[in-house]
């Protein structure tokens, strides 16, 4: 699967302080978990698409979302089939008690899908715009080692994929047929790939640890050569993310606009809901209109 890796661009989002980028993603995560109204969730999702577009990363974003759609649809389908609480049953299943498809179940599944898409969408935008070194340097404030582990694994992921490819080539060159036989045979046939991959990766890990130590890693307190301050656009992004969290909780708990799906759909609509949805979408996409400050600043 082509994971969404950082792509350098000159955009408002790329130029944000890494803390602001992470806050943005967390804001959308909270909003998506708290909100249940489909209109609100659609607005949040739309906001993340605006962000992707403003980061000039729509192509990479779509490449990953398209693949993710399959995963999401499977999750939703299982949920729809396994939930028997809907009143308007449209398909009773093959006499199996627990399988039934209802209009309510389908509607709930659709809302689940939108929620899932909103979350995945914003984290895709995050990983397309957050340089792995920014993450390391952000984490270095409180957990340098974890940050470094995370950034090293992003760096090494393509290397391991390449290793696996070259091992498959090597074993086939020797005459092994890795795809022959039944399932058990195929599992066994993976050993010639798994064993060399494991040992290669272990040796690489030991080698990198050795090189890091030789360069003074872990010798004591570190310094940071890029101590970026938060500037006003970063504060705006942090503010809009916080406001998004507060507004979501307020909309879900206080104002209402909370639909119910079972046993029958009850979807509150009206001007208030419409305006609230527009505001949510605007909050999410606000960073798109910030000035761009010359690409990623790397912590």
């Amino acid at each position: 699967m082509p994971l969404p890796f950082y792509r350098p661009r000159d955009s408002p989002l790329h130029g944000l302080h890494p803390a602001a980028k992470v806050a943005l993603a967390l804001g959308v995560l909270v909003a998506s978990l708290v909100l249940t109204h489909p209109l609100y969730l659609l607005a949040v999702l739309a906001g993340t698409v605006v962000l992707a577009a403003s980061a000039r990363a729509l192509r990479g974003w779509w490449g990953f979302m398209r693949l993710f759609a399959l995963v999401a649809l499977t999750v939703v389908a299982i949920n729809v089939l396994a939930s028997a609480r809907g009143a308007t049953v449209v398909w009773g299943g093959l006499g199996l008690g627990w399988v039934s498809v209802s209009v309510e179940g389908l509607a709930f599944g659709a809302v689940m899908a939108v929620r899932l898409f909103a979350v995945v969408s914003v984290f895709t935008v995050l990983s397309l715009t957050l340089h792995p070194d920014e993450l390391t340097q952000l984490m270095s404030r409180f957990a340098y080692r974890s940050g470094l582990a995370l950034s090293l694994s992003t760096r090494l992921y393509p290397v391991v994929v390449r290793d696996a490819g070259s091992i498959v080539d090597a074993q086939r060159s020797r005459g092994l047929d890795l795809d022959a036989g039944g399932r058990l045979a195929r599992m066994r046939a993976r050993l010639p790939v798994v064993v060399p991959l494991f040992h290669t990766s272990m040796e690489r890990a030991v080698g990198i640890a050795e090189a890091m130590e030789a360069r003074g890693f872990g010798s004591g307190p570190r310094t940071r050569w890029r101590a970026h301050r938060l500037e006003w656009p970063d504060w705006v992004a942090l503010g809009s993310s916080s406001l998004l969290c507060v507004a979501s909780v307020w909309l879900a708990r206080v104002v209402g606009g909370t639909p119910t799906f079972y046993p029958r759909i009850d979807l509150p609509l009206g001007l208030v809901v419409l305006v609230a949805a527009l505001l949510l979408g605007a909050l999410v996409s606000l960073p798109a209109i910030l000035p761009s400050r010359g690409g990623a600043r790397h912590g």
Partner: protein
Amino acid sequence: MPGTADAPAVEVRGLSYWYPGANVPALDGVDLTVRRGELVLLVGRSGSGKSTLLCALDGLVPSYYGGRIRGSVTVDDVVTRGRPVGELARHVGLVFQDPELQMVMSRVDNEVAFGLESLAFPPEGIRSRVTDALSAVGLKGKETAFVSELSAGQAQRLALASVLATEPPVLALDEPTSQLDPEAADDFLARLDRERRARGVAVVLAEHRLDRCLPIADRVVVLERGRVAFDGTPQGFADGRWEGASEAVLPVLSAAFRDGAPSPLTKDAARALAAGLASKGRLRVVPRASPAPGDVLVGCRGLRFSYPDGEEVLRGVDLALRSGEVLALMGPNGAGKSTLARHLNGLLRPSTGRVEVLGQDAAGRAVSQLARDVALLTQNPGDYLFERTVAAELALTAHLRGLEGDAASAEVGAVAEELGLAEHLGAFSWDLSAGQRQRVALGALLVGAPRVLVLDEPTRGMDGGHRASLGALLRRKAASGGAVMVVTHDAELAALSADRWVVMEAGRVVAEGGPAEAFGARPHYAPVLWQATAGVPGPRPALCPSELRIIGGATR
């Protein structure tokens, strides 16, 4: 702690070291002194203790590896015993063999800054140090590039910049050019030499490619089984002035002119010496016999290949590999050599054009079938190894090639014997050294005697002795009616084994034929001795020391 000006940069006294669980010491009473600003070339066969000694300088041995140690190491006036590696990093900068294994960050400038940050350099001074170090190695302008986008040569220069930036008084480099093509290797060494002179740092450089390094060395130290066998001038080393000196550890030029005057240290000196000997009629080149060309075993015609992203890597290649011959395929990185090799056994299929194996179109045959006739050794020998023992690894290939029972055991035994693996048959391949593993992988391909053997860069990190044995093995394979194609940057391996050269550039064959044709068109693929004897009268210059005859014996 700054060292006093006249104290040596490195002082090793009576150093012995045993890896955990080892009975034989990796280092056995080593004494070594390196003065400030001096470049010491550390020479020795694989497993002689070179890497161990380098790791002992900055404390990785013993604090990272464990094991027992005796004796003392003093670097920059600091006694290393009991000090953490991280602290010693201020005094010793280490550059390893594989650039990929030493990169930590994703961006070039952050990578250089990593060491400075780890050693807590003041943040305000880091930027200028990063800039200086990157310009010193010719990577200015690459600050924001991804480390993964660099070529091997650039990555190794980045590794050098990363240690130069912290300005340690001692640099220790472990075969830094072994993964680089000849041009990148020369460039790396030239920059290393310039920077160490400009900065006055002491350098300990472990290398196998000696002809390349000798001209920049101030002194040479030879390790044999963990002991110092020789410690003296480059001239004394080149002349082989120690007991047990063998061609396996000598530079090619020394091996070639051992019967002449003092050994030449540079190509120019060798050329002058050869010209002098030739003018007195005392130098003769006796080319080794080339076999009569046999049948075409593998051929391709009009081969074109593009990757799915549209990049055309092969642009119409014609090639015929005949029985009895060893063919050397050379050319810069990215020329399409490995891609071509992967077409010969069907791992890749041509976009247009045709590949024939033993007279049959390869298009209709699976890789597992083609592999019986064409064995391909890819660049990482570890990729082949997964069985519990070396014997099982070889037996598996025997089984895949249809050998069972006594016939299989006999074949496994014979191949193990030929590769010097007989004593390791019960070992787990991953417990063996890199060189031994490579022979296991080669063995796993040679079992069942496939007609065609294709090797991709088989001599990376290999010492002169093992290179000579590999060259001999390839000759034997060809002489037994097989055919060998070796994809290599190593002009010396080609010189030892090849009958025919093919040079590729940008997906096309640009030179082909015997050495005279190939090197006439592309002189920088010629081995060092060929370049040194180019003006000598005779059928052609010499490829390797065994082709050179000096008449009248030593004049020393």
